[in-house]
């Protein structure tokens, strides 16, 4: 690490402050400028989190400032950005969970979203009027039971993971992939069909009116400029931030521990790993259950935030989406995986939307370029229709440009000095 504060640090701090101020004063509500401002605010996060290049004495405070100050302030002005941050957080934790399974242990899981669904339905059933009808006295649980259930979900999901894992973890590589894919579909189809004979999931109608935590707090804080729903979003933001922190910590600690090395060893050579005394199924099972636990908890949060769950939110594409995040970010690289989650989510929620909204604006106002007016754009070219096409192209381009991910995983040499000492 650099001994003094390099000049770059000064720039980083100045830039961060400038963008924050700009965001606070320039934010208009929506549109390309805001998107740009918001994205500009993410740049310091990216730089500051790279402790190899950026002195942590500068990086950490900048990082904390953006997450704890700048983003919440901007988010309260426009909760959409808070919502984006929450979504990124949810997917970051999902991605970190999947990273343990795929990135560390090398088990290709194509049905990861199933555990997310388990958590979501768990909270949905115990905290909604629908569930009350099913479960009877004492239900629905109050919103604040959220925290208890979130912890319970860790174990429920981990248990589900273990239950599935036990028979199938002997399978190799892509056989495991297809079984997990099948499992993911089974969970979705079950959710879609378990409205009869006993109505557990309410089938395709989904479960609505799911309770939210800390609504009194949000209510008490409400003012005319900051109504309750904004405070509610802030609460979720805080919860998500905490969970991301926990997830990162867990990922880092596991990665550099003996269990992390066992996963890696199994990924490299199962037979040799076994011969070195690593129990194959148990070690894989731990990875599977840990990943599932991450997903289950986030499922609870997701259900609370959406206040509605239905099977469509848990289809195969979602599993693939999370996988895309971790591969795009860099398999096995914690920072990369989080960036992958951020990138995909922001791209989908915001950048592509802003782009098509921008083009639409040009069309609506009849903007001309080289004498050709955007107003002449035929409806087939309706920009908002091609967001997924562009997304597809971006995926290809990014992978070709950075085949090992945005932040490729690196094995850090362990020296006797830093052994057993990971933050």
């Amino acid at each position, binding site marked *: 690490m650099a001994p003094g504060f390099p000049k770059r640090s000064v720039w980083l701090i100045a830039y961060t402050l400038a963008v924050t101020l700009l965001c606070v004063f320039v934010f208009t509500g929506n549109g390309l400028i805001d998107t740009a401002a918001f994205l500009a605010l993410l740049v310091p996060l990216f730089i500051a989190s790279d402790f190899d290049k950026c002195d942590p004495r500068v990086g950490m405070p900048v990082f904390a400032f953006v997450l704890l100050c700048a983003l919440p302030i901007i988010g309260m002005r426009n909760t959409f950005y808070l919502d984006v941050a929450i979504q990124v957080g949810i997917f970051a934790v999902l991605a970190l969970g999947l990273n343990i399974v795929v990135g560390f242990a090398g088990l290709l899981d194509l049905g990861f979203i199933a555990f997310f669904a388990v958590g979501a339905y768990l909270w949905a059933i115990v905290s909604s009027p629908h569930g009350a009808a099913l479960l009877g006295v004492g239900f629905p649980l109050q919103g604040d039971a959220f925290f208890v259930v979130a912890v319970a979900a860790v174990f429920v999901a981990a248990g589900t993971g273990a239950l599935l894992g036990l028979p199938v973890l002997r399978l190799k590589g892509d056989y495991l992939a297809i079984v997990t894919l099948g499992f993911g579909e089974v969970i979705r189809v079950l959710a879609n*069909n378990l409205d009869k004979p006993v109505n557990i999931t309410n089938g395709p109608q989904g479960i609505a*009116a799911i309770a939210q935590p800390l609504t009194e707090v949000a209510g008490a804080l409400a003012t005319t400029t900051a109504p309750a729903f904004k405070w509610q979003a802030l609460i979720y933001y805080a919860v998500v931030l905490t969970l991301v922190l926990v997830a990162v910590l867990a990922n880092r600690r596991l990665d550099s521990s003996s269990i992390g090395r066992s996963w890696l060893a199994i990924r490299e050579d199962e037979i040799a790993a076994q011969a070195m005394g690593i129990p194959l199924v148990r070690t894989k099972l731990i990875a599977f259950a840990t990943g599932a636990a991450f997903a289950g908890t986030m499922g609870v949060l997701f259900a609370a935030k959406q206040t*509605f769950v239905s099977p469509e939110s848990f289809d195969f594409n979602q599993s693939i989406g999370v996988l895309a995040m971790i591969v795009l970010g860099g398999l096995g690289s914690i920072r990369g995986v989080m960036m992958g989650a951020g990138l995909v989510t922001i791209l989908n929620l915001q950048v592509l939307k802003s782009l098509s909204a921008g083009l639409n604006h040009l069309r609506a106002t009849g903007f001309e370029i080289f004498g050709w007016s955007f107003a002449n754009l035929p409806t087939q070219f*309706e920009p908002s229709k091609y967001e997924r096409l562009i997304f597809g192209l971006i995926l290809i381009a990014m992978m070709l440009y950075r085949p090992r991910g945005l932040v490729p995983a690196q094995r850090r040499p362990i020296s006797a000095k830093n052994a057993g000492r990971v933050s």
Partner: protein
Amino acid sequence: EDKGTIKIVTQSPLSGQQSVAGEGIMLGAQLAVAQFGKQLTDMGFQLSLQPEDDQATPNVGVANANRILNDPAVLGVVGHYNSGVAIPSSEVYAKDNLVMVSPANTNPAITDRETTRAIANRICGRDDIQGPAGANFAMDTLKAKKVYIINDKSAYGSGIAQTFEAAARKNGANVILSTGMDQNETDFSSILNRARVDQPDLIYYGGTYPQGGLIIKQMRQKGLKAAFLGGDGLDSGDLQKIAGPENMTNAYFTTTALPLSQMPAAAAFAQTYKAKFNKDPEVYSAYGYDSARVVIEAIVAAAKAKGGTMPSRAAVAEAVRGVKFDGVTGAIAFNNRGDIASAKYVVIEAGKSADANKIVKIIDVAAPGGS
């Protein structure tokens, strides 16, 4: 003078299999903004329409909703196409009283939930009437006794199939099979092979036309002569194209929309639509058009009430309930739950082509529960 920007958003599937209908809604709304937006621009507002793609997926719809919600310029939403997307998305709109006027969502839950009571509206009918209407028709007119019911496992399809089944059973129908079949499936032979043995009088389908058309086609190809009946999801010019005209016999659907050809005001609408977009209107285009008009009228009313200044979202939501006009799709007026005061439920015999569709029956029913 410039009193600020007002945006109206459409949320409908613009990509994916259902994008035809979704685009119809969006273009209808665009036409309405072009035609009626003048009232607002004359008052000094900038008005624009912002199309959003909800991809027929709840998550996407909700994410869009969150973004829209934070754009203070947005005063109303026209959407969605799928009830399954509209329900969770409207939960988001309700957080800040952003009004939603749905052109197509027939699921009862759209207007039945307390949480969205203030902001959710629709200008189409409800499945708890449409389903039973279909059942009555099946029993009374078609004299169906043995019935197969298939639904597409979507919120809409399973909902309408349920209401149909309940009413049919009440009327004494013998429901031999009631099953789901995922909306992406294209192969109905496992059900139809069995039907060849059971020989039901009627196959009811709760779902949309891409599958509905296939069921008709595969039924007839397997030599099944049974009647086919479904809900408004089948109401599309493509139904016949997919089924193949030669297979279109003994097929019916209920809908809450009069065929365009039957609507007096529709001819002019269809003409301008075609002139503007160079394509014929989809079934739900007119509904998108009228929904957007509802929003515009409500904004105008709310703005006027506030002395010509920018109205609040809550005021617009409230104003929607007072909007009254004769739209392309019929008389528009809402009850206090957001349902259209009086909806038409139409039973149609599907012809060899959409133009050959015949109206069998029109029922006028007031929405239940409202006032």
